[in-house]
């Protein structure tokens, strides 16, 4: 069976989005995590535009535009402005589970989500749903996993956003004509969360001198020297 080029490119985007999700779990530096998140968002927007082109849905053009402005430009820019030192410091992120095992676990999640929703998706007989639904779910789970495995605020924040990317990928396939207002609400919601978490992180960083979440379990006393 041969798919049209547009759907094939969409599938390619979905595959690369999955790879980006793995990379977000597997990278050791904050800057790298951010870079892969941006790449993932660009791919997501591309997939969105491809679907909009294929199915002639005007809403998806808007959604793609929102994705580009919010996730590719705005959020990284805000994060870089507020948390610049954390980005440019070149240290390894601390993790509860080391990276090879994390990657294997993420792989299990991906295979599991394929097995879980693969049959449902293939029942739809729509190639876009068949690709996007399992991969979107896999990205969502992998994002949630990186949220749990990372012990630092910024990668955790990027993990939330990566989860949202996964949900978005599945969403545009299942309901391309969902009312724009609902999509907008979701998109804006997440952006707001991101900004709030970003600002909170910044405050924590100012008072504690670090954004490493593991270090925050100790109470701060009068004269504690962090690093």
């Amino acid at each position, binding site marked *: 069976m041969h798919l049209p080029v547009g759907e094939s490119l969409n599938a390619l985007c979905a595959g690369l989005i999955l790879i980006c999700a793995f990379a977000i779990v597997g990278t050791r530096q904050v800057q790298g995590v951010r870079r892969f998140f941006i790449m993932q968002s660009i791919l997501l927007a591309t997939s969105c535009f491809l679907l909009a082109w294929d199915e002639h849905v005007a809403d998806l053009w808007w959604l793609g535009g929102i994705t580009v402005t919010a996730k590719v430009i705005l959020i990284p820019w805000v994060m870089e402005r507020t948390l610049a030192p954390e980005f440019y410091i070149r240290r390894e992120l601390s993790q509860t589970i080391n990276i090879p095992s994390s990657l294997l676990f993420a*792989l299990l999640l991906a295979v599991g989500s394929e097995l879980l929703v693969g049959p449902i998706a293939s029942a739809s007989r729509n190639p876009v749903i068949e690709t996007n639904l399992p991969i979107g779910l896999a990205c969502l789970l992998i994002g949630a996993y990186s949220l749990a495995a990372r012990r630092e605020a910024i990668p955790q924040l990027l993990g939330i956003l990566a989860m949202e990317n996964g949900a978005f990928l599945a969403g545009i396939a299942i309901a391309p004509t969902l009312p724009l207002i609902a999509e907008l609400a979701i998109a804006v919601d997440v952006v707001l969360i991101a900004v709030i978490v970003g600002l909170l992180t910044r405050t924590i960083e100012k008072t504690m001198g670090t954004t490493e979440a593991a270090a925050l379990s100790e109470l701060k006393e009068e004269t504690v020297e962090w690093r």
Partner: protein
Amino acid sequence: MRRMIAYNIIQILFVLVFAPLYSGVLSRFKEIVQSKRGPSIFQPYRDLWKLYHKDEIISDQTTWIFRITPYLVFIAPIFVTVLIPVLTDYPLAFAFMGDMLAAGFFLALAGFFAALAAVDTGNPYGPMGASRTRMVGFLAEPVFMIVFFTVSFVAQSTIPYVVQQQWVASAAAFFSPAHVLLLVAFLMLILAEGGRIPIDNPTGHFELAMIDESKGLEYSGRGAALMKWGGQMKFLVLACVFLNVLLAPWGLASGESIVQILIAVPLILVKILVFAVVLVMIETSLSKLRLFRISEFLGAAFIVSVAAMIVSIFVAV
């Protein structure tokens, strides 16, 4: 039939003759990118010539394994050449003798004997390098397996001549995620198997850091020449598998006349040259990984190949 065998011999000659040139071009490119001048691209030929005219010294502590290994290392890539498309896009005389698994088996056999021979000498650096090669090898094995399974699943065949037609059947097939991800995974595999830079430094002469090179440390004279030539051929053969089977069969001869075969030679060389430029880009922009980071590099390759498999199963192309 006789013509097919003749073409097969031309393919073997192509690999034999151009393998040293390829390695020479690669190292020259690398030196140029690093703003050095570097040796002539014909230097590997001179090295081989020089080694052939030197005496061979074999330690009396070694066994027959040490003696037959250079021949095995030399012959294995030639066997693989018989099975894969190097110059033609239609199967030649012996193409159905074995599939891609057989090709992988031949290369693995040569690698196995090379590791044994390195242990055989009792030189402390040999076994160290051999055990590292095995480590890289067993991490690379699952990637090769998954790539192989995915390819045979998508193309419904394991014969490389059938597989290569799959990708150019339509633009959608060419851009299908399975194809692109497979290419990435196999490229990483080539870097690992060929001992290129993120894994191993092919130009390094420091025994403690050697991985792939250390296997040939004890060889001299003809043995060293065969080991070297065999290694160069293996790398060229892997590049041919990547370019002709997995990427696309562009530039291959499709007709059966001798002229088309001869035209295919420069076309394939150009293709390999472009690939050499890409390799040099990768090699100069990365640094050699620490030994225990290699598992992460190959783990990433494994993830990519499994993603290709997942996508290929659920997205029917």
